[in-house]
C-alpha cells in the first residue's frame, strides 16, 4: 500500500510539473539569463517541493510555492556568488539593429538578457514579476515582502533603464 501511495504521489507530482514547469522555466530564465542555470533552479526547487509534496499539494496555490523557491534560490545564488553582470556587446548602440526584425529571436533574446543583466537583482526580480508574470504591484510586494511603493519605484526605474538599453519603444513600434 505504501508503494502504491508513493507511485500515485509521484504521478500526481509529475502531472503538476508537466503543467506548470514551462512557466517556472521562463521566469527562471529571465531571472538568471541562461537555460542551464534556469533548469538547475527549477530542478532544485522541484526536489525541495517533492519531499514536502503531501503538505504542499494541500496549499491553495502550490505553483506559487515553487515559484517562490525559484526566486529565493536565484537571490541566494546571486548573493553567494556575488555575481557581476556580464555585458555582451554594446546593447544600447545596437538596439535598433537588434529589433529591426522582431522575428530575429536570437538577437532579441541576447539584447533583452544583456539589458536585464544590467539591473540590480532586486530590480530585475521586480521587473520580471511585474511585466513577465504580470503580477499586480500588490502581489509583487507580497511575494517579495516589501512595500507597494518600493515595487512601484523599482518597476518604474527598471522599465526606464531597460527602455534606455534596448529601445523598447522603437522595437515594439517596428513589430
Amino acid at each position, binding site marked *: 500500500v505504501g508503494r502504491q501511495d508513493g507511485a500515485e504521489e509521484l504521478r500526481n507530482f509529475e502531472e503538476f510539473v508537466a503543467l506548470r514547469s514551462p512557466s517556472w522555466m521562463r521566469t527562471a530564465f529571465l531571472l538568471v539569463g541562461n537555460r542551464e542555470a534556469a533548469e538547475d533552479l527549477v530542478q532544485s526547487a522541484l526536489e525541495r517541493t517533492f519531499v514536502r509534496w503531501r503538505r504542499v499539494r494541500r*496549499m491553495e496555490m502550490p505553483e506559487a510555492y515553487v515559484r517562490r523557491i525559484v526566486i529565493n534560490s536565484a537571490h541566494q545564488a546571486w548573493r553567494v556568488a556575488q555575481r557581476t553582470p556580464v555585458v555582451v556587446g554594446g546593447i544600447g548602440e545596437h538596439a535598433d539593429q537588434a529589433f529591426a526584425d522582431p522575428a530575429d529571436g536570437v538577437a532579441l533574446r541576447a539584447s533583452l538578457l544583456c539589458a536585464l543583466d544590467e539591473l540590480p537583482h532586486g530590480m530585475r526580480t521586480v521587473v520580471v514579476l511585474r511585466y513577465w508574470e504580470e503580477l499586480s504591484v500588490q502581489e509583487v510586494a507580497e511575494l517579495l515582502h516589501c512595500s507597494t511603493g518600493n515595487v512601484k519605484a523599482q518597476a518604474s526605474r527598471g522599465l526606464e533603464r531597460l527602455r534606455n538599453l534596448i529601445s523598447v519603444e522603437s522595437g515594439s513600434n517596428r513589430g
Partner: protein
Amino acid sequence: MSEDGGNAMNEANAMDGEGEKLHVIMAQAADGIAGIRMDGARMLRARRRRRWQEGGVAVGILSVTLAVSMFTLHYGRGSSGPAPVPPGAGPTSPTAQQTPARPTSSPTVVVPVAVEVYDADDGSEGAEFLSAFTQGKGSWLTRQYCQSQPTSHLRPKPGTGLILDLGKQTKLGGVGFNGSWGTVEIWAADSSVTAMPAVVPGQPPAGFHKVAIMTGSDGKFPRFDAATRFLLVWYTQLPKRDRLDAVPDVLPSASNTDLLCHNADGATYEGEITNIVVFQKN
C-alpha cells in the same frame, strides 16, 4: 517618461503601455524555453536523502545537546552562561546561546523525527535553508522584513517558525535555543494533534498553545511543564539584522535584500535558528 523614476504618479499611464510592450519582448525572448521533464528517480533520491537527513537531525542535535549537558555539568546546575557554539554557526547579533531551564533530574535528549516550516503564510519561509539546518550544517533563516513584526500579504501575521515532530507524546523538561532572538515563543500541541499541521495563512497552528516565551531582554526560556508530540518554535518579533551579516558569503539571505526598506535607517529584520535542543522530563 521623465528621468525621475520615482515620479510614479506621472508615469503610471506611460508605464502601462511600455509594460505591455516589455511583456511581449520577454515572451519572444523566452519563446522556446520549454518545461522540464521531471526526473522521478531524482525526486525519490531526494526523498530518501531527506529521510536520512531527518535522522541527521538526531545526530546534529545530539552532539550539541551533549555539549550543552557537559557545559551545564561542568559549570554547575542553574548556570545561565552561554552554551558552546556548534560548528557552522554563523555570526549573528544579538544571539541567544542558552542552556535549557534546569530539569529536576538528568535530562534526556528528545530527537525530532521531522522538522517543518510553519510561517502562517504558505509554508515556504526559509524552506531553502531547512535541509542544511536539519543536517546541522547551517541555520534556518526567516525572510527579511522591514520591521520586527513578521507580515504576510503586507498584514501582520502572528509569527513564523519551525514545528518539531518528536515522534510521540513526550513530557518536556526544557528547550535549548541557539540563534538570534527578538521574541521567541514555544508552543506545544494538544494531544488531539496527530499529524504535522497544514499551514493556515494568518493563523498559528490549530491545536497548539503557548507554553514559554523568551525575549531579547533576558534571552532565556523559563521552565515549563508540557506533554506534547509537536513543538512550535515561533518568532513573534524579529531582531534587526546586523549589517556585518549582510556579507553575502557569510549569510545567504532571503528575497528582498536589495530592495530598500522605508525605515529611516533602511534596516531589515530577520530571525535565525541555529540549533534547538529538546529535553525530556525524567
